[in-house]
């Protein structure tokens, strides 16, 4: 992370969103909204006085509600850049029009309540889409696990935060409900994944391994603890993965093959009722905490990204690669590449490999000085173009404009307007050729004559 921040060739634009993408491979024009942080990054030293003194506490999104943050905050202590933002929805200065504490205490005079979103347009030759994943919203559909009403039924990501040394509990695994150390932790795999009835049909790929890791961590950190994993299948097809799983099993993790039918509270305990399909009988565990391995789904906002970049998505809304085997990081938009879980659920090793592959594709493009363009674009027969501009209206890429030509007619110079195609912008869709009433517009490679000949041939 620090390596990316310190690299002389990398410019960070955090708290920023892409608003529009125009242009084409080698020449994208991207409009970016730099959201107002309300903090001047050129002055801020990241000293932390502002968030220490800020009187407003809200749930930390970063800690998935397990911890609190202030209204002016860094998501986590090691954030890069170490420049806080003001959450204007909760900051008293914005909600009630008075407070100003952070501005008063800031020794660098970096707080700027009047800062506005900044819109910039920048040129790029290539775009890598790495918008990632979020977790399946299990609370909405899994009634058998309590629809999220039991605080000690958490997701793997919550467990990561509890377990993280810089997390809300300083790395202690405790129950969110009462802060007690759990002795029996039940893990349920395939929550939202491999479940066509309630969730997604696909396997989320990383869960078997992170659940093994979680079970290992429970056994390692909590003396005398029990880790019980309910699974459908165990999938460990990576280098050193199966060995890792076996290590966890040898440490004492109990793997039970079967689905959990119900989780419910009984006093202090969460009763987990399920089936052991290998023994062929019902099992019941009185657990202190239940951790769900929820499916990865595309990061919210994928629709906007897909629309701006002309990306296709698969049935589960992950971005579609140009070919599942042979072109895994390319998209059908030239110059736009995919990396990571936005293309499908992935673990870290696979994500890193794919990101490097996408980087190579970008470099491959950049090693060339000029790019050959597809010649299958629209063309105008100026001699019969009536200059009606119907084509200009229908062109989705703004590639057609009208120009004036002069020609000799009966010995006199006559000027008239005709359509003209910009070869860099034309994507070869051919909408213009259909709109053209005089057939002056045609599409090279897919001419009217060619397509009619095909129709005739298949109808024989």
């Amino acid at each position, binding site marked *: 992370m620090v390596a990316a921040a310190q690299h002389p060739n990398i410019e960070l634009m955090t708290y920023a969103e892409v608003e529009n993408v125009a242009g084409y491979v080698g020449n994208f024009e991207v409009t970016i909204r730099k959201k107002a942080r309300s903090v001047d990054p050129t002055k801020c030293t990241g000293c932390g006085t502002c968030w220490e003194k800020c009187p407003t506490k809200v749930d930390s999104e970063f800690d998935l509600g397990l911890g609190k943050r202030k209204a002016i905050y860094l998501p986590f202590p090691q954030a890069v850049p170490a420049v806080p933002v003001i959450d204007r929805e909760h900051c008293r200065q914005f909600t009630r029009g008075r407070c100003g504490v952070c501005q008063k205490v800031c020794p660098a005079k970096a707080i700027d309540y009047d800062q506005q979103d900044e819109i910039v347009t920048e040129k790029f030759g290539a775009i890598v889409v790495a918008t990632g994943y979020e977790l399946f919203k299990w609370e909405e559909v899994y009634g058998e696990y309590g629809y999220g009403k039991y605080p000690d039924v958490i997701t793997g990501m919550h467990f990561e935060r509890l377990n993280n040394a810089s997390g809300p509990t300083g790395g202690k695994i405790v129950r969110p409900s009462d802060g007690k150390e759990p002795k029996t932790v039940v893990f349920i795999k395939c929550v939202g994944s491999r479940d066509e009835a309630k969730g997604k049909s696909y396997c989320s790929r990383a869960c078997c391994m992170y659940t093994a890791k979680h079970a290992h961590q429970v056994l390692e950190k909590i003396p005398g603890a029990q880790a019980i994993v309910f699974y459908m299948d165990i999938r460990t097809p990576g280098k050193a993965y199966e060995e890792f799983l076996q290590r966890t099993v040898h440490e004492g993790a109990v793997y039970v093959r079967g689905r959990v039918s119900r989780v419910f509270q009984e006093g202090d305990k969460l009763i987990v009722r399920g089936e052991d399909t290998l023994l062929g009988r019902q099992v019941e565990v009185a657990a202190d905490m239940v951790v769900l391995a929820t499916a990865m789904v595309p990061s919210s906002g994928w629709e906007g990204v897909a629309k701006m970049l002309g990306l296709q998505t698969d049935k589960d809304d992950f971005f579609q690669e140009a070919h*599942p085997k042979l072109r895994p990081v390319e998209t059908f938009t030239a110059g736009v590449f995919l990396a990571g879980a936005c293309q499908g659920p992935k673990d870290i090793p696979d994500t890193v490999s794919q990101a490097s592959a996408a980087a190579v594709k970008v470099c491959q493009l950049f090693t060339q000085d000029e790019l050959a363009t597809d010649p299958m674009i629209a063309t105008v027969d100026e001699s019969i173009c009536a200059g009606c501009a119907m084509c200009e209206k229908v062109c989705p890429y703004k590639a057609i404009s009208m120009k004036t030509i002069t020609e000799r007619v009966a010995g006199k110079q006559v000027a008239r307007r005709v359509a003209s195609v910009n070869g860099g912008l034309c994507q070869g869709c051919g909408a213009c050729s259909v709109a053209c009433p005089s057939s002056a517009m045609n599409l090279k490679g897919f001419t009217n004559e060619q397509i009619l000949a095909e129709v005739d041939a298949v109808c024989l």
Partner: protein
Amino acid sequence: MPVAAEAKGWEPKIVAFCCHWCAYAGADLAGLNRLQYPANVRVIRVPCSGRVNPQFVLRAFQRGADGVLVAG
């Protein structure tokens, strides 16, 4: 088509205009997944469904197609 001929296993002749970027890709995907469908469809690849001139559709009917599908 007379009823008698239909009874003898007559099948319609269908011409499909498929957009290279979506419907044609979808037809390829159907192949990759080995989804089976009747063999009486003839796909003509177009760069966009917007490329399909109504004239192409009429021509297909004129030449004896029983159905035309524009997919994109």
